[in-house]
């Protein structure tokens, strides 16, 4: 039975209006980001912001005390709410005590989180959202689609019809008149309302100041015109001083919209004051005469107490992680169900809302690391998602299917091999002339919905490598080849190419026969025990002949060997020591070949135009993108870049099984950019990407060839 989430995913993918809006949105934000990053040292600025946010969260209890003292001294009233209910009750009571019937509100994700608006509306208090996007989703009765752009999924016609209904007159859907109507309809609200509610982007402990950013100007109007003001502030927003605010300002708007600064940045400290008239002092100014600051915990301290998840509190809610997320680009934010979208939203949902639904949401993440590479606060979002999955597995155990696949098969290398050999024998009736499987029968059909699968081999790579069990003596450096499952079982010929290529480069390659699966599928599904068992096995298998390098052709494997084995073995000092020795030896093939430099014996230019797809784990995981390009060009090929060469191909762990349609839609975007180059060969440097791209193109009967860089380079000799 398809889950509710699965149904929503399918609906979103089938919604042409939504898809059109998303493709506009993706284009706009991509352009914005290029603008925003121009002329700055992003890595240095995000390092600075990360450290400042870290310090603020570390010092949080003291900062809260300091903030309260200074804000109170400036005339604000502070209420600390440990959960959403208490925050809502406080604000509702205040509104009732003052006889407030009408409230204006600027956009605040925290009040979405607490459900404040609905709480007030239930008590027949009118609440007008003033951010135009938020106003639109309010009228539509929907949840925001995006942290920063709540209504990115709406068309002008849909918006016009919402306002036509509200105003009881026909509203034009031409953009400019529509905007005028929206603006004028809000204007009177500001002037009439008895209370203003805002959030805060930042709060300053040293001065008791709240900082509010808006581009539309609604923040200015909400926080000034009404004499009774409420600011709902998450405790994680508090920083020490103005330099910390600057660190946020330097990256917030640049990240999400691409401008250097948000248009209005408002620092509000306490209540407003005016001078005297006719020698008589006045009791207040033209801004707030009462400012209530509601400091909300609602799961934040629990997150702070967790070593693993503490860094999620560094989030400045810029939304750039959504702008670059391939899953968001296919679905928008509503499918995330609660308030916060995307990878970070999945983490926040687990702590602020609903732990159970976060389990399912975590399956949407493909682990492409796009979010991690752009996060201005330096949050390892995919890493946190993996930890969340691991926690869920610890609490609830693995699903039956995964228990079988990982615990019973993957964990035991010999059993895995037997299973592959058995499948290879059974697959015969489904293979086509290209040795590909275009369609599997039920219940495996969904595996071949968007790609053709490669046929498995009975003559596995290990069988073919019996001549390479140890390195040739006297040659250096000694290079162990770690092939990974896809190569071993589906592309053993590619593995042979790698050995020949290494021989051409005159190193001493060998194939450690005892190597097993790197454990990535289990590890990223949260099955740490299987992953640790495989780490142990591989660390021993790859240490045997004391290689100088361990070379891989799948960057997913490389990351396991190089990085994740270290964290998996952290509890066992002796094994950890060995893991760290292994880590230093791991090289991606193109990286190793580049380090070795050009070797003699190469044919003259092989020629031809090719395009190159950056594997996620190679570019963002290992920082390698120039090396393969250089090798391709040195081999005599002309490289034609596709648009977004580093966009994910859609081959991503759990999502492949849980949401094949989603992975399919991401794949189709990739295939379209490959096809747009007009070349007949796409090169990549990851066997999983090869499987996905080859399968996708075969399924469409496309003549475009997909080759791993090892295959391409072998062809030059």
């Amino acid at each position, binding site marked *: 039975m398809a889950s509710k989430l699965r149904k929503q995913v399918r609906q979103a993918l089938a919604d042409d209006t939504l898809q059109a809006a998303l493709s506009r949105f993706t284009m706009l934000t991509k352009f914005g980001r290029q603008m925003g990053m121009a002329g700055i040292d992003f890595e240095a600025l995000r390092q600075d912001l990360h450290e400042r946010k870290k310090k603020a969260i570390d010092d949080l209890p003291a900062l809260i005390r300091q903030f309260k003292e200074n804000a109170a001294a400036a*005339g604000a009233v502070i209420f600390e709410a440990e959960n959403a209910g208490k925050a809502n009750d406080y604000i509702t009571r205040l509104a009732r005590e003052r006889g407030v019937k009408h409230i204006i509100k600027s956009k605040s994700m925290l009040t979405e989180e607490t459900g404040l608006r609905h709480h007030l509306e239930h008590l027949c208090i009118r609440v007008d959202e003033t951010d135009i*996007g938020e106003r639109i989703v309010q009228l539509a009765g929907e949840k925001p689609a995006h942290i920063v752009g709540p209504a990115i999924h709406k068309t002008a016609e849909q918006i016009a019809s919402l306002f036509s209904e509200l105003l009881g007159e026909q509203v034009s859907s031409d953009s400019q008149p529509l905007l005028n109507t929206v603006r004028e309809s*809000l204007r009177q609200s500001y002037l009439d309302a008895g209370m203003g509610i805002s959030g805060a982007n930042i709060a300053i402990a040293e001065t008791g100041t709240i900082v509010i950013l808006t581009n539309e100007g609604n923040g200015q109007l909400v926080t000034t015109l009404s004499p009774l003001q409420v600011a709902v502030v998450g405790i994680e927003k508090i920083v020490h001083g103005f*330099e910390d605010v600057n660190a946020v300002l330097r990256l917030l708007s640049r990240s999400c919209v691409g401008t250097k600064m948000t*248009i209005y940045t408002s*620092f509000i400290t306490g209540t407003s004051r005016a001078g005297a008239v006719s020698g008589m002092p006045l009791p207040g100014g033209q801004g707030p005469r009462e400012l209530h600051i509601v400091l909300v915990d609602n799961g934040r301290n629990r997150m702070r107490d967790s070593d693993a998840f503490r860094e999620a509190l560094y989030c400045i809610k810029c939304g750039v992680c959504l702008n670059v997320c391939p899953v968001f680009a296919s679905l928008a934010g509503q499918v995330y169900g609660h308030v916060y979208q995307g990878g970070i939203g999945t983490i926040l949902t687990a702590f602020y809302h609903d732990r159970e639904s976060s389990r399912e949401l975590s399956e949407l993440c493909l682990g492409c690391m796009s979010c991690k590479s752009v996060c201005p606060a330096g949050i390892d979002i995919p890493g946190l998602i993996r930890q969340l999955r691991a926690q869920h597995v610890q609490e609830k155990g693995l699903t039956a299917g995964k228990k079988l696949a990982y615990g019973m098969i993957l964990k035991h290398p010999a059993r895995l091999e037997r299973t592959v050999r058995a499948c290879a024998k059974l697959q015969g009736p489904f293979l086509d002339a290209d040795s590909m499987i275009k369609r599997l029968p039920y219940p495996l059909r969904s595996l071949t919905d968007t790609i053709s699968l490669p046929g498995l081999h009975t003559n596995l790579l290990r069988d073919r490598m019996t001549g390479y069990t140890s390195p040739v003596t006297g040659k250096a450096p000694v290079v162990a080849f770690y092939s990974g499952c896809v190569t071993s079982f589906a592309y053993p010929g590619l593995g042979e190419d790698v050995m020949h290529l290494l021989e051409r480069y005159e190193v001493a390659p060998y194939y450690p026969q005892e190597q097993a699966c790197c454990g990535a599928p289990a590890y990223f599904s949260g099955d740490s025990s299987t992953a640790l068992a495989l780490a142990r096995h591989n660390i021993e298998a790859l240490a045997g002949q004391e290689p100088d390098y361990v070379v891989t052709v799948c960057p997913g494997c490389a990351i396991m060997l190089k990085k994740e084995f270290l964290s998996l073995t952290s509890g066992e000092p002796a094994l950890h020591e060995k893991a760290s020795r292994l880590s230093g030896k791991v090289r991606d093939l193109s990286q190793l070949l580049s380090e070795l430099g050009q070797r003699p014996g190469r044919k003259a230019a092989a020629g031809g135009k090719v395009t190159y797809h950056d594997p996620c784990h190679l570019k963002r995981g290992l920082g390698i993108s120039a090396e393969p390009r250089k090798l391709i060009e040195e081999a005599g090929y002309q490289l034609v870049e596709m648009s977004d060469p580093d966009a994910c191909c859609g081959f991503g762990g759990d999502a492949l099984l849980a949401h094949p349609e989603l992975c399919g839609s991401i794949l189709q975007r990739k295939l379209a950019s490959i096809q747009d180059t007009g070349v007949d060969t796409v090169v990549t440097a990851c066997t999983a990407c090869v499987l996905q791209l080859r399968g996708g193109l075969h399924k469409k009967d496309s003549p475009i060839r997909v080759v791993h860089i090892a295959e391409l380079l072998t062809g030059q000799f």
Partner: protein
Amino acid sequence: MTVDHELLEKFKTEATLTGAQVTLAASVEDAVNHVLKLVKDKDIKIVVKSGSPIADRLGLSARLAAAGVKVTETSITQWAAQLARGRDVPVDKLAELISAAAGEQVPAEPEAILQAVRRILKDVYKGAGLGITEADFGIAETGTLVTLENEGNARLAAILPKLHLTLLDGRRIAGSLADAAELIKGSSGGIPGHKVPAFITYLTGRNTTADIPGAIFARAQGPAEEHILILIA
């Protein structure tokens, strides 16, 4: 203090990129003429302004009045002084004047007067064609205008009228966000308990929205145009 031409140039470039219309005035007369031309070109009949040493130096209110433009002060003290035509009037007399302006009886008590003036001024802001405010300083790095105040009138004069003009002293331009923070920390705003003024506003360019499909549109909820006049005399 002298004008740092490098910072000034950088500020002008950045502010222009954000969509503001920046003018440098080399003399008081140039500055006045620029404002007079602006109100004439845009057919502005009503101006609201917040307290501004530059405007005082230019004699701007008088020059605008002479050109037939109605100028209303927005700080309550100055608004009351304007209402009393600059005379020192007792509270009772002021309350009468305010009552007349409000069209209702306003008692000569601080609370009642404050509430009445807040109400009256809301309409004044809304009906104005141009708001004139003065920034305390600019930030060259980002083309940002920084305004410090305690009352809130400068914020309203900057956002509610149809157009906004910021006056800026060409000698008062900070290089970076970090420099701006230092300047702010040194200005307490003079209210007991406040370590900084009640309101600090960073204005960077023209208000926009991307929430209406099609493009990024100017004039989301604030003024249609942002003008900056920098006096370097």
